[in-house]
């Protein structure tokens, strides 16, 4: 069932290097009868940096946003499509289950958050909030069996004590979503292996190595495209392939597409909102 209003936290990357994730997610939500209300004046969730510099701040920042959703916006669900932001929100909500931490966090934020907001990642929104039946009913341009390797990466599912993911070592909800829109999800080995994340800014050699392994396995398992739900995974898997190609001339690139773009294409979202021209590895053939 749809026609629901969700608070929306885009996060820094969706306004920076992943505008197509933002626009495709918003357009797909609209087509699925979801109303998104962006949190006014949202702050950075603290990302990778805060939890290795100031632990208390790293918990307080997402909890501050959750308090805004609960008490200012009076909504009970928050969509956080960026997997890294999602992880910080789930971690914040988990950490304040400890009363001592909760007291410190309330002192930082200036008010208490009472736990009234369900935090949903991109896969949750399609799989649970919309639901597979409802999604199937909205499909107007199904894919014709496009072979897709669903790449979950790290933070959609780990650690499971925080995300409450059903099967963190071999998740399947994204697979179920792509199957609903006519793709053929593949079994493969690197579903939840790390792409190197922010090491792409400083240790490019390591990231090229990790990305190379992931894509090589996806290709060996028959993937015509890789589906992702994280802006950093997308920019690494997509962008680093152009660098791998420079070092390895026989490299066969595989398009790396946000789940929101795949869903959007299948339910009739226009190409401009899908942002298909922003990819470094061309996606037009598989998205045609």
């Amino acid at each position, binding site marked *: 069932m749809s026609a629901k209003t969700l608070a929306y936290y885009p996060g*820094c*990357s969706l*306004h*920076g*290097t992943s*505008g197509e994730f933002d626009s495709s997610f918003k357009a797909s939500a609209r087509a699925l009868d979801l109303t998104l209300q962006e949190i006014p*004046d*949202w*702050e*950075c969730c*603290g*990302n*990778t*940096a*805060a*939890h*290795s*510099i*100031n*632990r*208390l*701040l790293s918990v*307080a*920042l997402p909890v*501050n946003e959750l308090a805004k959703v609960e008490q200012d916006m009076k909504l009970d669900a928050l969509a956080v499509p960026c997997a890294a932001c999602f992880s910080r929100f789930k971690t914040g909500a988990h950490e304040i289950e*400890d009363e001592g931490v909760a007291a*410190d966090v309330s*002192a*930082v*934020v*200036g008010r208490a958050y009472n736990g009234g907001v369900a935090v949903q990642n991109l896969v949750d929104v399609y799989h649970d909030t919309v639901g597979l039946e409802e999604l199937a009913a909205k499909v107007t341009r199904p894919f014709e069996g496009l072979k897709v390797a669903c790449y979950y990466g*790290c*933070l959609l599912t*780990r*650690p*499971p004590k925080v995300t409450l993911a059903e099967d*963190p*070592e071999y998740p399947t909800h994204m697979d179920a979503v792509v199957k609903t829109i006519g793709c053929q999800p593949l079994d493969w080995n690197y579903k*939840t*292996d*790390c792409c*190197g*994340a*922010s*090491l792409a*800014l*400083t*240790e*490019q050699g*390591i990231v090229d190595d*990790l990305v190379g392994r992931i894509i090589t396995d996806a290709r060996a398992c028959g993937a015509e495209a890789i589906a992702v739900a994280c802006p950093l995974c997308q*920019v690494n898997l997509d*962008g*680093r392939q*152009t*660098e791998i190609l*420079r070092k390895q001339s026989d490299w066969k690139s595989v398009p790396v597409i946000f789940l929101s773009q795949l869903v959007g294409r299948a339910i009739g979202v226009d190409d401009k909102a899908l942002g298909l*021209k922003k*990819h*470094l590895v061309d996606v037009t053939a598989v998205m045609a």
Partner: protein
Amino acid sequence: MTTCTPSGVLATKVGAGCAENPYKCYQCKKCSTGCPVARYAGMHPAQIMRAVQLGQYDMIFEDKFIWLCTGCETCTTRCPQGIDIAAIIDELKIIARRDGKVHPDAPSAAMLKLNYDSFVRWGRMWEVELITRDVLKRPASAKAWLSLGPKMLLKGKVNPTLKKGDAAAMKRMVQNAESITNARQQKGGPA
């Protein structure tokens, strides 16, 4: 030959900082077999845990491992003892910074700080600013962007501008968090 002098000092510090008990580790090495970056460093997560138990502070900080950790949470997910190993590695990064023990050849340490400073300054993290400031500090890093950077800009993949968050609210929260953390540290409690 390196000799180990068990002291327990680091284990106590680390445990106090992140509410984890490193002594629960019995060296099964599941963390290390699943670690995506262990092969690029001198130490792997199980060795880090052992060094923490033995108080081998310098051994950890002389290796790059903690600065290559991506925070993928595989170690934490798989630990049969339920230790949040990734949180311990975060805590080691915090201690290294506080005690001036950041590895000299770990650009990721400086990048994390640039990232932190960016969202503290603007209320939101500005990706283009991180790369620009890193290149200014570390001109050699420009080489890594010569090819990919312009391609991303030409495709419109990067939005070079920033829409600020509520920077005043951010500054207030940062000040509150830092003062509470510092007060706890002086009392010898959790950092």
